[in-house]
């Protein structure tokens, strides 16, 4: 693999190599997540009611379980 970055992308290299290194050591696995399944979406922008409720359900912020 070519580990050399060119000037235009040099600023990403630290983060890139950090993640790449961990993937190479098999400590983590990276997957693509489509926006519909992206749970972190609820932290980045205001969502319309329907998708907001769906995300809350997936985040397990449910109506109280009577303990």
């Amino acid at each position: 693999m070519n580990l050399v970055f060119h000037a235009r992308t040099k600023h990403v290299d630290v983060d890139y190599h950090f993640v790449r290194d961990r993937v190479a050591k098999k400590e983590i696995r990276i997957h693509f997540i489509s926006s519909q399944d992206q749970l972190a979406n609820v932290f980045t922008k205001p969502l319309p009611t329907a998708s907001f409720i769906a995300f809350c359900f997936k985040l397990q912020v449910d109506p109280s379980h009577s303990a």
Partner: protein
Amino acid sequence: MISYKPVDTPISTSKVIILPDPLFSDATCFRQIMRALKYLTFSRLDIYFIVNRVCQFMHPPTYSLWVAMKCILRYLKGTTTQDLHITRSSSFALLSFTDANWAGSIDDRKSMGDYLVFFGQKPISWKLGKQRTIARSSTEAEYKALANGTAEVIWLRYLSTDL
């Protein structure tokens, strides 16, 4: 607040926080409520985003922030029974979601990055914050968020092996 009608979401998708704006008169009252809301985000991930957003403009509080905060309170009024319920889970997988909002901060055009880590099926760690440097592309912003999420997962991994 007792007479207010509940709303479905804590934030409006159409309105944005605009600066400058007339100042809100009772800053102490505003900060006290925001402090309580910040504390509540420990068990309510659904309001984490908007509370974080409002907290960025705390000094000095403006009228539109006060309106945004009232919207959160109205949302909470309708969802008082919700909470984060941690139960026994058979899965021990650490799963992290990371995302970035490129140039999401309207004032300085810094990007917002966040991660959300699940242990089994329950979220155990999450963070949303402004990235320290200005990303020149959305890919760069996503990479930074990915690196932060990775660091958190690796730390949690070491922690779980120590237990």
